[in-house]
């Protein structure tokens, strides 16, 4: 294993984990190639593919023109012809230019063709806010994609998932979209050498607690974990669930945790109206209503196009204090601040 500059031998950055995952895929399967904007000679807009162009050449690390619809569609076509492509889209906002191909083709062709064709394609893209890049580079639209039958939607938050979800996604005969939160690329954490694979089916408990469940994904996971620290100082034990897989949702893990803690806060950087958080909340209401001691709460992104100014962007994103306040209000309604 090679490690990114600055990383110690025991830790790895999220970015490097993504890079190693792609490198592994290119090494292990001659039918895998990666294409996207500036992934080759430039090394990737978030430097995830750095060095791969030199190692694997321009055929397998393929720079594309700024034609999201054409190169995403070409990924679907290549998958139909027997390849296992990885397509990188710079950011989720740009993926809207390829929405037709993702929704009308990738997600429908297996079904429309009566099972004659599969689309074993992986699309990776950056998502989320926090980098002060305003309203066309910062949104969290993965919840939209999680609406679409036929797609699997992944949101790796920890380095282990960044390192191993890709292989599982490539082994899936269906189109898989992987959302990498932009604020996570520089995170550095230990990678257990004993782990060589992860599942792409289940949510995972990242912290155990008995008083309230915090459900989050992506960068929201770390905000929820920080909130759990704040709550612990108040004597409230929060359980933190990392969704990991946004479609299909692992409802069982969510319900099991809620049945234990009887209170739940759902954290979602996406806008509240019509959000993934709304879907999770409704599932809990439908299937776990009688386990609840308090109404489910949501801490979502504020309903504004992402502003540039740092104080405004921070105010638009779910912060640990907001999450902790929502949880406190559920656990100690008399004293908690809403």
């Amino acid at each position: 294993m090679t490690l990114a500059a600055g990383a110690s031998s025991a830790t790895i950055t999220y970015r490097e984990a993504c890079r190693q995952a792609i490198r592994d895929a290119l090494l292990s399967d001659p039918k895998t190639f990666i294409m996207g904007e500036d992934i080759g000679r430039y090394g990737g807009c978030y430097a995830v593919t750095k060095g791969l162009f030199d190692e694997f050449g321009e055929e397998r690390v393929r720079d594309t023109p700024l034609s999201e619809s054409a190169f995403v569609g070409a990924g679907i076509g290549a998958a139909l012809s027997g390849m296992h492509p990885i397509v990188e889209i710079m950011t989720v906002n740009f993926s809207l230019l390829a929405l037709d191909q993702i929704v009308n083709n990738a997600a429908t062709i297996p079904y429309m063709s009566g099972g004659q064709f599969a689309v074993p394609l992986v699309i990776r893209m950056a998502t989320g806010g926090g980098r002060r890049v305003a309203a066309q580079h910062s949104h969290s639209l993965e919840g939209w994609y999680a609406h679409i039958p036929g797609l699997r939607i992944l949101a790796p938050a920890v380095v282990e998932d960044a390192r191993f979800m890709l292989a599982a996604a490539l082994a899936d005969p269906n189109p898989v979209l992987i959302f990498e939160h932009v604020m996570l690329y520089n995170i550095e954490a230990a990678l257990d050498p004993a782990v060589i694979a992860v599942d792409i089916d289940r949510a995972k408990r990242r912290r155990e607690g008995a008083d309230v469940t915090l459900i989050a994904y992506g960068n929201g996971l770390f905000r929820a974990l920080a909130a759990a620290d704040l709550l612990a100082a108040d004597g409230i034990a929060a359980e933190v669930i990392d969704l990991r897989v946004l479609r299909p949702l692992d409802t069982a893990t969510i319900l099991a945790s809620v049945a234990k803690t009887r209170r739940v806060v759902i954290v979602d950087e996406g806008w509240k109206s019509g959000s993934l958080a709304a879907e999770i909340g409704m599932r809990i209401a439908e299937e776990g209503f009688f386990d609840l001691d308090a109404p489910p709460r949501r801490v979502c992104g504020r309903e504004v196009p992402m502003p540039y100014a740092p104080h405004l962007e921070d105010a638009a994103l779910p912060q640990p204090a907001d999450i902790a306040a929502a949880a406190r209000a559920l656990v100690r309604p008399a004293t908690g601040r809403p």
Partner: protein
Amino acid sequence: MSARVHLDHAHRHHLLRQMIRIRHFEAKCVELYQAQKILGFLHLYDGEEAVSVGIMEALGPEDAVVATYREHGQAIARGVGMDRLMAEMLGMQEGCCRGRGGSMHIFDAKTRFYGGNAIVGGGLPLAVGIALGDKMQGRNTLTACFFGEGAVDEGEFHESMNLAALWRLPVLFVCENNLYSMGMALARAEAETDIARKAVGYRMPGVAVDGMDVVAVESAARRAVDDIRAGGGPQFLECRTYRLRAHSMFDAQAYRSKEEIETWRKKGPIVRFQGWLQDSGLIRPDEVTGIEAEADAEIAAAVAFAEAGTLEPVEELERFVTMDRVPT
């Protein structure tokens, strides 16, 4: 394959037979639509048969085809079985897509027929990708991509033309220019109505051909296919044709005159080719009758097959939303 069309007796009859099979198949579809056995949209190919028939003659069995939503003719000319095609139209599980696709979404893995795409322009990126995948896997194949002139209005057309040319991919772009995208006349939609010239902007060879002349289409397709197979990269073929019927089944056709339609009907591909064969003494009237009877018998058998079909159990509604494996 060779660029020359060998217009011997057998081939002449074959071309005429293919066009008649399509025409008669669709005439039967209209009956079944009026009887409410075929539902939804039904986009007829009446007047455009020479395009598919001519193009498919230049393709080999290993090649791939990406079709439009007006694709019954494309499917039949490609060799998709009429029985499974008709069963699909009737929504039966014996249909080529188990009744999941219907008229607009015909897929057939056996003939590498990749739909049946009803998003105008949406098939072009797929064709580029299939050609890319084939090329990367060392196959000496090409992908023929059908689309109407309306697709030229879409960004996906331009992105795909550029990508195919940039990467020198084996794609045959086939524009079926029938002059109307639904009710929108070409001249009202495009600043440059000479569609073949669009290829110039992508440094791609582009040729316009009389799409009502099956021999001209086949000949142009063979030349283009030869160039593609020789490694010359993609080619663009504009086939100038005309849709003699409504866009779909509900269309008052307020956007064009009856006279215009009648003028084109006289230039129709079957009238023209059959007329030429008869005038030149290359086919006897009884041979034409024989071809028609043969096509009608095939269609009758297809209808019988489809009507004897079974409905997929509703319990299977969610089957194939996701796949357990990649079909081989």
